[in-house]
């Protein structure tokens, strides 16, 4: 029998008890090392044991409950997807979301964790598995070939079982490197099944399952451990006299071209996927929550705190909604939708016509509101529905034990959305209920205090609140780069009366922008593929580098110093103060 690194068989790779919370198990299957860890939600992750950045073993990293943190540079990878959510060396940036570690399939069954190097085949329980409750024996690593170990196991029962625990009557080989031993007891027949985990060409782990109804289970565990130790010692003495087979050499998959370039290029338009409304409920007066899941029951793509999805509505409109989830929560996205009479029919359609069980087209998560995790103090301020991205941020900070405070401003108690999630954050949350408009600035002043090193504030809410916080922060000496905000929409009236020329440096193309048309529209008419989302200068998706000329910004995405620098703009609303602009497109 030859071992293959692309074998599709499912093998046990760990015991369930090997995976307490906040631990990373170091395993190996068919020559390939694995980092195996259980998230706080119980999910078991089986990943290649290698950080994509510099190849350091993830098994020396830290299980933070919802994310795994690499020991070398602190990169975080999300539970389930293994997508990178944070790169500490560039704390203000959202990492390219397709930095994703190699994962292997995982099934937890019979007290063992099963995986396959090649997930092409479905996991199937072994023959006879339904006939008993199973208990995993202490695993026994052996330096010998699978072949020799299997042969020895076929002879195991008769020698080890005799006398103390009953007499083995039948041994049979099962598919997938397994041996089943039937033992005759006074009480009747009981089975033990031994699986051989092929670690490498000359190394295995014997993982046994014992029928739970054996009498005196602790003595059984001890006795089998003794039996397997003897078997191991015998096999290793024999193996020492044999030539050592060449170790298996699994190949490492290459990263995509876009990830291998530096600096990271921005990723174009997000892919669209279909999601089902699993749950729809009123989370506060005027706010409806939707929980969206993937159709196939798998996890959804990786998101970072502050990220949003575009929801494509049945009436052809598309709207952005922030994800409220905490780290590693990828089985569904929960969003909050506020009934907004002023909207052009976005929120209304969702709230009034979309029901549980309906399928919606959504974009992959995109992040224009990235959260730094390198702060001494983080102040989160949410007004009304602005709680949605802020809630996600708070849950990430809480899980990593980073210092933060959340100030949630609502008109009345019944308008507090996601109340149980808010309550779970405990003393870090301050609710400001029914604060008179005049008192808001004073409250913000008190909350922020004077700025000092590595303090950051994040605000999401109505435009008036954002303006208040921005002004207050500026008055208190907070620098622009410490004040982070996300507008839901641009309330300003866009002046599109100017006409000018745009030169696209990389596309070698010059376009005339007439009054009444946006740069984005003209580029699309010229056949260019450019990504955009809100198309009102609020979301930052169409952010473009300006190489020459002075833009007329008009957006609410860039902060004052970014606007002054004049080296980037939003093609959806920004125009030109000079006759000509040169853009980095």
């Amino acid at each position: 029998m030859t071992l293959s690194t692309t074998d599709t068989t499912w093998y046990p790779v760990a015991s369930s008890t090997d995976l307490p919370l906040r631990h990373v198990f170091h395993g190996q299957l068919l020559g390939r090392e694995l980092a195996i860890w259980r998230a706080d939600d119980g999910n078991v992750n089986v990943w290649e044991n290698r950080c994509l950045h510099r190849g350091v073993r993830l098994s020396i990293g830290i299980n933070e409950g919802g994310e795994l943190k690499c020991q070398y540079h602190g990169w975080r990878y999300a539970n389930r997807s293994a997508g990178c959510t944070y790169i500490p060396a560039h704390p203000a940036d959202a990492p390219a979301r397709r930095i994703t570690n190699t994962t292997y399939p995982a099934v937890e069954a019979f007290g063992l964790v099963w995986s396959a190097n090649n997930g092409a085949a479905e996991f199937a329980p072994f023959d006879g598995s339904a006939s008993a409750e199973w208990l995993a024996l202490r695993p026994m690593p052996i330096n010998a070939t699978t072949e020799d170990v299997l042969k020895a196991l076929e002879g195991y029962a008769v020698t080890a079982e005799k006398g103390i625990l009953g007499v083995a009557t039948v041994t049979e080989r099962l598919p997938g490197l397994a041996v089943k031993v039937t033992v005759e007891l006074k009480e009747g027949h009981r089975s033990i099944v031994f699986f051989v985990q092929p670690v490498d060409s000359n190394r295995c782990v014997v993982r046994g399952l014992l029928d739970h109804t054996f009498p005196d289970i602790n003595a059984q565990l001890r006795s089998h451990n003794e039996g397997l130790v003897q078997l191991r010692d015998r096999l290793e003495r024999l193996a020492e006299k044999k030539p050592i087979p060449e170790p298996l050499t699994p190949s490492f998959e290459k990263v995509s071209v876009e990830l291998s370039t530096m600096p990271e290029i921005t990723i174009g338009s997000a892919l669209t996927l279909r999601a089902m409304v699993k749950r729809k409920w009123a989370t506060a007066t005027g706010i409806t929550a939707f929980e969206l899941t993937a159709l196939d029951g798998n996890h959804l793509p990786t998101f970072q705190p502050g990220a949003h999805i575009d929801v494509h509505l049945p009436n052809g409109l598309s709207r952005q909604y922030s994800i409220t989830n905490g780290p590693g929560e990828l089985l569904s996205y929960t969003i909050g939708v506020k009934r907004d009479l002023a909207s052009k029919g976005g929120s209304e359609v969702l709230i009034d016509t979309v029901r549980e069980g309906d399928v919606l087209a959504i974009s992959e998560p995109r992040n224009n509101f990235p959260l730094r995790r390198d702060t001494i103090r983080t102040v989160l301020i949410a007004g009304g529905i602005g709680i949605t991205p802020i809630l996600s941020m708070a849950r990430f900070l809480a899980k990593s034990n980073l210092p933060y405070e959340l100030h949630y401003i609502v008109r009345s108690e019944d308008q507090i959305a996601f109340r149980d999630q808010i309550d779970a954050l405990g003393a870090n949350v301050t609710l400001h209920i029914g604060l008179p408009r005049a008192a808001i600035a004073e409250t913000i002043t008190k909350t922020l205090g004077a700025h000092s090193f590595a303090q950051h504030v994040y605000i999401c809410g109505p435009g008036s609140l954002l303006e208040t916080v921005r002004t207050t922060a500026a008055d208190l000496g907070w620098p622009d780069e410490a004040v982070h905000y996300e507008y839901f929409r641009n309330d300003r009236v866009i002046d599109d009366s100017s006409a000018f020329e745009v030169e696209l440096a990389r596309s070698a193309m010059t376009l005339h922008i007439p009054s009444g048309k946006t740069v984005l529209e003209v580029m699309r008419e010229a056949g260019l593929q450019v990504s955009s989302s809100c198309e009102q200068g609020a979301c930052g998706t169409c952010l473009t580098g300006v190489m020459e000329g002075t833009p007329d910004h008009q957006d609410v995405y860039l902060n004052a110093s970014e606007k002054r620098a004049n080296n980037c703009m939003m093609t959806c609303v920004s125009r030109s103060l000079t006759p000509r602009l040169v853009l980095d497109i």
Partner: protein
Amino acid sequence: MAITLYDFELSGNCYKLRLLMSILGVRYDIIPVDFYPGRQHKSDWFLKLNPLGQLPVLVDDGLVLRDSGAILAYLARKYDPSGLWFPTEPVQLAEVLQWHAFADDITATASAARLALGMFYDFDLPKVQAGAHRLFRLMDEHLWFGEREGRAWLCAAPHPTTADIACFPYVMLSEEGNISRMDYPAIRRWSDRVRRIPGFTVMSGIFPAGRAAAE
């Protein structure tokens, strides 16, 4: 009261004392000894402190002590008012001392492999590596059944003792001697528990554990 530790940063035996003193909150001064490349532990001035020419040496108010296991016992008896770290009840005492001896065997194997590969000491590498694996197999088995029976530490007591401190460093540094701990999952879990003892401190080569899950 003034404690002075003659110390080499990369020595696991010295680290045992730094670790216990950190856990017990005992203040001490360090006199660095250039073990490598300077070989100051074989110099005349050091041999006067310890004729065996071995680190660590601890001086407490004029009392000069050598041997990490003996010093662990001394520090625990003298500076741990709870009496838990080095119990005197006969059965518990014997149990701790058994593991102190086991720790010395780990030093003779795992630490020797590390010195051979890291500082080019002339040891029989395959022999000391195999010896370390033999010990780790026993230790993993002991800890695996311990977990099953509700025992988290090396000794039966429901709290860590100097036995855990004595065994910890050279287990954790074994990979520098090319002794993988992949086959010892129960040891790896125990090492998380040791690293979560309040007051735990690291040495070069040992990273801290992340936080435990909230109760």
